[in-house]
């Protein structure tokens, strides 16, 4: 067995737009998805994530480049001959068939006998926790139930790779959270490679072993959730995943891994970075709101003076908006560990915003 479940090599997919132009929905994408991995394609709509998935499924053929599934070239193989199955966004259950016929469809196509089929269908229904639903029609089921049936219909075929196209998009928030955990557990149990398309960064962070962040047909960064979140490679990724404060600055010096960055009139900060910068280079310092602290006295690390402009209490956290002397505004998130905590700081207070040398990230693109 090849090392990778799916490999995309320099894959290009172009469409002719209604106006006669050429649109590169997927623009020379290369990625390797490991066997048994929960891999997410994350990005806003139109970023090429669904087109990539559809090319792996075989619904679209690449304009150029190669796609391998477990080492076998699949670029030109029609969908019905590929060892993958898909869970569709709108489920795409066959409305004229019962749940049993729907789930058994893949086995029927493989020529599995009726008795064997019905046995495996009831097992699959057990797996998605909907036993005894065989004779229902898709229409008689709720959205969440249809979702599970679609999952069972795909998994019963024991595909080499399961493709999921925003499968939770149509469910309400609470059900979504439940299904996220359930999907993750299920994936660990069956050990099948999952490729999961989503535009919801929280969903991707929750479930994935690795994430590929896409934008405008290009992969911007591939990495584990914590890599993507803690060490975004670009401003776009930092902005797309979670909330980030960007402060523009100029490099004033570098001593080993410590970089000095001047933030206009706000002051000079020190940031740990493995990269090398030149003096007077324009950079952007990205720092997450939860990594900033409000203080009244100077602490270790960076300390910047500012004035509180707003205080928003949202239950678990309190969000503060602080404006620095140089005019930049940052958001700060503090957990409400003690009751009444948010009442200590008031709008208009002068405060110190402190953070460690390692929490910010210097980004140039």
């Amino acid at each position, binding site marked *: 067995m090849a090392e990778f479940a799916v490999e995309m090599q320099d894959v290009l997919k172009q469409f002719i737009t*209604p106006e006669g132009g050429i649109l590169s929905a997927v623009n020379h994408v290369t990625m390797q998805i490991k066997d048994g991995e929960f891999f997410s394609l994350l990005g806003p709509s139109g970023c090429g994530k669904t087109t990539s998935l559809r090319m792996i*499924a*075989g*619904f679209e053929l690449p304009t150029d480049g190669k796609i391998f599934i477990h080492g076998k070239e699949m670029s030109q193989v*029609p*969908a*019905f*001959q590929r060892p*993958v*199955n*898909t869970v*569709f966004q*709108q489920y*795409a*259950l*066959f*409305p*004229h068939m019962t749940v049993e016929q729907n789930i058994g*469809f*893949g086995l029927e*196509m*493989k020529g599995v006998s009726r008795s064997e089929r019905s046995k495996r269908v009831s097992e699959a229904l057990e797996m998605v926790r909907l036993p005894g639903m065989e004779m229902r029609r898709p229409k008689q089921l709720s959205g969440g139930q249809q979702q599970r049936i679609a999952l069972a*219909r*795909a998994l019963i*075929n024991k595909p080499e790779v399961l493709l999921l196209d925003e499968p939770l998009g149509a469910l309400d928030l609470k059900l979504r959270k439940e299904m996220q955990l359930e999907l993750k557990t299920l994936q660990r149990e069956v050990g099948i490679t999952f490729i999961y398309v989503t535009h919801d960064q929280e969903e991707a962070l929750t479930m994935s072993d690795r994430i590929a962040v896409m934008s405008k047909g290009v992969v911007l960064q591939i990495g584990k959730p914590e890599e993507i979140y803690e060490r975004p490679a670009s401003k776009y990724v930092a902005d797309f995943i979670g909330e980030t404060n960007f402060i523009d600055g100029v490099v004033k010096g570098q001593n080993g891994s410590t970089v000095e960055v001047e933030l206009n009139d706000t002051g000079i900060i020190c940031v740990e970075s493995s990269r090398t910068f030149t003096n007077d280079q324009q950079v952007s310092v990205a720092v997450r709101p939860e990594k900033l602290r409000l203080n009244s006295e100077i602490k270790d690390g960076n300390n910047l003076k500012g004035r509180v402009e707003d205080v928003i209490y949202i239950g678990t956290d309190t969000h503060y908006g602080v404006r620095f002397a140089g005019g930049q505004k940052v958001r700060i998130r503090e957990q409400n560990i003690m009751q009444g905590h948010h009442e200590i700081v008031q709008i208009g207070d002068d405060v110190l915003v402190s953070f460690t040398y390692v929490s910010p990230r210097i980004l140039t693109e």
Partner: protein
Amino acid sequence: MLKFFRRNKGLQLFSLISPGALWILLFFNLPLLIVLFISFVERGRAGSIKIPPVYTIENYRQLFNACASQFAGPECDPFLYIGIFGHSMRIALVVTFWCIILGYPLAYFISKQRPIWRDALMILVIIPFWTNFLVRTYALKQVLATEGLLNSFLMGLHLINQPLDLLFNEFAVNVGLIYGYLPFAVLPMYASIEKFDHSLMEAAADLGASPRRAFLRVMLPMTLPGVIAALVLVFVPVVGAFITPDIMGGGKIEMIGTLINRQFGVSRNWPFGSSMSLVLMLMVLIGVVAYFRSSSEETRRAM
């Protein structure tokens, strides 16, 4: 008075329904009763019926045994009319079959176009309805004639040496009827196919179904209501057609429609024509009822 009318829902409903209901009652149900009456009386000398009426079931007997007629010669074929009924059925089945076979891919093709093209193509399908049916049939006759467009074209290309016999036979009648009724097949099938969610075909392919099997297991069953509607819409009028077989068959192809037409025309045998009309109606009725009995609730609603 007006106030009373406004408050009385039943009266409002009655006044809305009654014009249409009255129309059907006067010009459809009542004449049908008259036809039923005529079918059970003896014909008059100069056509119409004997006055006062003489009741008889001879008109029905004659239908099932042609030799029962007072005009029958010694070598008469007792199954003459039954044969014509059977023949009409066969033509109607062939025409319906081809209308569906030709119409389904066409409806599918149109449904796959971009909306603006879809509308344009559907108008092209409907346009023939705006042209007089007789004119169209005569035009088709010119195309198929011995010295007609098609023969001249084929001979011009030296594909054939002498003109083909394309007119005044069953082939011509079939072509004429398929030509005339194809839009009736396309419209309901288009309505069904257009509603069909093509992502289901992807789902079927994803689960290992070849295009052929995906069509047979998913698309065809789901668009069947449109196919059944097309079947009824084509079969029912074709089995009773009389203009097309008359023109395209050149009087050589006898169908129920032409036969009935003749009873009210040259043969001046109203009672016999009436009995045939009613038997035809009964046959179609039995067919449709049998279909409704066997079809599911969903299929019925789609009609």
